């Protein structure tokens, strides 16, 4: 992956070890990486509430170069059957990152943010986010593992509305580059 080329390929230990729910750990190598394997399976209290405004949606759309009417014109959104302007498909990252901060900024998790690169991202939309939504996000740490000398942490944020109905599931994998 080109992301690793940033610092060159680090010493590549043979094989890939997984830590987490299966209980297999390698404390020595993880200590070098400093990622805390005990965080796998962890669930955080709900973060938020986040009130989504028209301005936030339109600013996000502008920033990704979108001219889509549904992101800026309430009447255009209503013509498509939505109560208000609709967020772009990746807008939820704005909210998810605020939830993920609970993990990333926790010193005990051992994530050195200066060594973090983004590996993967995914969104499953149970329904689109619209202006006026009041959402909360529950952060789950799904997986903590080592691959090729790097640490990898996969998180999932479940965004729900104020009726508790699911809105968006955001999955993210960050790569903590190993010491070369």
């Amino acid at each position, binding site marked *: 992956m*080109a992301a690793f080329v*940033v610092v060159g390929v680090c010493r590549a230990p043979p094989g890939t070890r997984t830590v987490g729910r299966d209980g297999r750990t390698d404390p020595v190598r993880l200590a070098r990486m400093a990622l805390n394997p005990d965080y796998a399976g962890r669930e955080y209290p709900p973060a938020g509430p986040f009130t989504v405004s028209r301005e936030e949606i339109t600013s996000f759309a502008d920033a990704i*170069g979108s001219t*889509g009417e549904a992101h800026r014109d309430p009447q255009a959104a209503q013509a*498509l059957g939505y109560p208000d302007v609709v967020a772009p*498909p*990746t807008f939820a990252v704005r909210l998810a990152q605020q939830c993920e901060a609970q993990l990333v900024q926790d010193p005990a998790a051992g994530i050195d943010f200066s060594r973090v*690169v983004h*590996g*993967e991202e995914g969104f499953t939309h149970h329904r689109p986010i619209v202006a006026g939504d009041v959402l909360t996000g529950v952060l789950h740490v799904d997986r903590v593992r080592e691959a090729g000398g790097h640490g990898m942490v996969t998180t999932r944020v479940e965004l729900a509305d104020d009726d508790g109905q699911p809105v968006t599931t955001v999955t993210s994998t960050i790569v903590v580059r190993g010491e070369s």
Partner: protein
Amino acid sequence: MSGQTTGTAALSQTVTVDRARLVDYADASGDQNPIHQDAEVARSVGLDDVIAHGMWTMGAAMDVVTAYVGGDPGRILSCTTKFTGMVVVPEGGTVEVLVEGTVRKVDEEAGTQTLELTVTSGGQKVLGRCQAVVRL
């Protein structure tokens, strides 16, 4: 769009990014990592120059998909990507990113299509396994 078969080229569009847009994206997304704004910081961590947020590239690519489904963002049911390459954005420059998509799967019963996107900049792939499932 409907009736397309697997492997059909569905979309192709060039989008552009410059430093000002990255500042806008940092504000809009909340991702203020300085490697996306400050060349000195970028170089200090071993990069050649400022790079675009991977999520900017994904967002721009999914906007092309939104246009493909008639400008209705609610018809994108899911989307996913790996970040495999970097989009370097030099000071004063405008960088082109090419977004191309083909229909990978059609589910007539569910009324959905799976699109596979190829996203390149300067001929280099920047997103990997980038897919979107859309409602027709």
